């Protein structure tokens, strides 16, 4: 919208007259109730006949709440904003609306709260809205997950592949790089191809600001929507945040677009829901979570899907994040979400502190459906790499006991160390599919096996530079077809031999 400075008084008055003339008075008749009591963000209301579950309630002085407990003689609601103005005896009005969020292209590149109110200081002129709670696509509306969603992280794309429409959990202790993986996946998406949504649930405002800054700096914010509720927001706002992100993602998915949504994180979401449930005096279950905590997350994650071609073929890929305490993945919330999702990427503190970045524990990580979507160029080599690395890690643990090891085992450990070194990746470094295929081929061809561990990081960069210079056509072919033909493979192997010779010669 352009700012107009040349509007005459007559034209402005005509504009206002026309608008006011077109205004239709609607009857203002609504049910009301009276606040019975209020404490800790929960309000008990007398009256409000006909109130629906999840209805937005309007208190005096424009304070809003959410009806979550409907009993015979009262209604329990949680407040969405400051409670200071809600006192016993004040009036409450039912709005007749359930919580919704603004949708559409105008939301792209924006930072909003769960109700679609802008948090980035700019006006937002979205016309359409979508209710936060929706039914998930039915079986007949879905199609198999067959298209890959590359993260640009070699270890994930080769061994724990993610498909479009899949739900892949990222789980690990605090400070193990969970958000970094999700952000790398966002940064790796081509803007016209995949729309990204980042849901910051109960995060520190400074952390969210840093993430927005990173995405803006890397030029990916234009293609991303951030739905945020900070740690100081009411539990109800934190509870609604992932549903708002999901509703926005769905609106794009049903238009045939591919969407990647990150829920950061669902542990905090579960805690916010527990707080609300306990204050609403619902019975507490395991770890004091309410009985419907599983349903809370299953109904959210079940909305991710690959839609059938009849519905436009759009997809919503979900990367929920869960924080564990002391690496315990058998706690209540982690086990719930592991059972809901189609696989998990487990990040280990031990690997992180040993310098392995990303600190993915391959033994505990799995992708249940992603391999169907993996590109052929990577599938073939990636499967063997996973097996070789698993064997190496087993042997490495065994060798720590100082037992005498035969030559074959020593060689296997030696190779495993180098394979692991190649998989190390800096936080801001992502690979193209062709680069990943070249690195995997280089591992299987033994290019790095004769090198010192300290050399590998540099050698990896130089190899990619060399192949880009000598065989750009091969890289282009992999990018366009996703496959690696026998001829291309032989060509690349020869180029790798030539690189190795040149590299060793330069070293001397």
């Amino acid at each position: 919208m352009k700012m107009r400075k040349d509007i005459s008084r007559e034209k402005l008055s005509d504009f206002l007259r026309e608008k006011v003339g077109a205004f239709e008075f609607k009857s203002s008749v609504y049910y009301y109730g009276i606040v019975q009591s209020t404490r800790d963000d929960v309000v008990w209301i007398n009256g409000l006949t006909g109130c629906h579950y999840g209805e937005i309630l309007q208190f005096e002085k424009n304070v809003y709440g959410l009806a979550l407990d409907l009993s015979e003689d009262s209604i329990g609601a949680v407040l969405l904003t400051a409670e200071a103005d809600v006192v016993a005896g004040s009036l409450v009005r039912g709005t007749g609306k359930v919580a919704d969020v603004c949708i559409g292209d105008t939301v792209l590149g924006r930072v909003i709260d769960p109700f679609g109110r802008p948090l980035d200081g700019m006006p937002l002129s979205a016309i359409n809205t979508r209710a936060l709670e929706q039914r998930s696509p039915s079986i007949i509306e879905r199609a198999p997950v067959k298209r890959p969603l590359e993260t640009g992280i070699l270890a994930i794309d080769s061994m724990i592949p993610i498909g479009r429409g899949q739900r892949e959990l990222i789980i690990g202790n605090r400070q193990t790089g969970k958000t970094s993986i999700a952000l790398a996946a966002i940064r790796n998406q081509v803007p016209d191809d995949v729309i990204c949504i980042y849901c910051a649930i109960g995060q520190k405002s400074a952390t969210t600001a840093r993430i927005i800054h990173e995405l803006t700096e890397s030029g990916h914010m234009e293609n991303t929507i951030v739905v945020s509720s900070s740690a100081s927001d009411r539990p109800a706002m934190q509870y609604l945040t992932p549903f708002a992100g999901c509703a926005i993602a769905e609106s794009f998915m049903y238009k045939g677009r591919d969407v990647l949504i990150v829920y950061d994180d669902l542990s905090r979401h579960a805690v916010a829901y527990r707080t609300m449930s306990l204050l609403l005096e619902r019975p507490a279950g395991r770890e004091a979570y309410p009985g419907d905590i599983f349903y809370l997350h299953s109904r959210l994650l079940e909305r991710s899907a690959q839609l059938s071609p009849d519905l436009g073929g759009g997809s919503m890929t979900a990367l929920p994040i869960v924080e564990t305490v002391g690496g315990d993945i058998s706690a209540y919330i982690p086990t719930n979400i592991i059972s809901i999702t189609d696989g998990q990427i487990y990040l280990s503190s031990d690997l992180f502190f040993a310098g392995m970045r990303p600190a993915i524990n391959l033994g505990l990580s799995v992708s249940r459906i992603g391999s169907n979507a993996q590109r052929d160029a990577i599938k073939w080599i990636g499967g063997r790499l996973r097996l070789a690395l698993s064997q190496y890690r087993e042997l490495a643990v065994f060798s720590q006991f100082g037992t005498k090891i035969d030559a074959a085992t020593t060689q296997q450990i030696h190779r495993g160390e180098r394979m692991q070194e190649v998989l190390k990746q800096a936080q801001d470094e992502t690979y193209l599919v062709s680069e990943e295929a070249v690195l995997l081929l280089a591992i299987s061809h033994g290019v790095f096996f004769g090198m010192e561990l300290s050399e590998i990081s540099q050698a990896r960069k130089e190899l990619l530079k060399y192949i880009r210079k000598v065989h750009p056509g091969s890289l282009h072919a992999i990018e366009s077809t996703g496959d690696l033909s026998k001829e291309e493979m032989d060509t690349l192997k020869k180029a790798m031999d030539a690189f190795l010779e040149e590299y060793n010669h330069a070293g001397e």
Partner: protein
Amino acid sequence: MSVLRTPVLKIAPPYDDDLIRRIEQGFSDRFKTDVCFEVNEDPSLLCGFVAYVNGMVFDASGKTRLTDIKEYLIDSVLVPPTEKEEDDF
């Protein structure tokens, strides 16, 4: 679940007994029972009245009408102008 046992009528001045009686008659016809309001004068309504009857609010005040128009105009301004509106300007 009755909220207020006595129906309440908030009304902006000026008003007279005849007006109150006509309003009561209208609500009595609607609810098929005698409605007798506890009347509170409220100049902040600007004009019209707000009636609280049987758990429902009937808001016919000038204040609410103006608030509705204000929100409508804000929404109109926030929506990008149509091509015709651009041309008119």
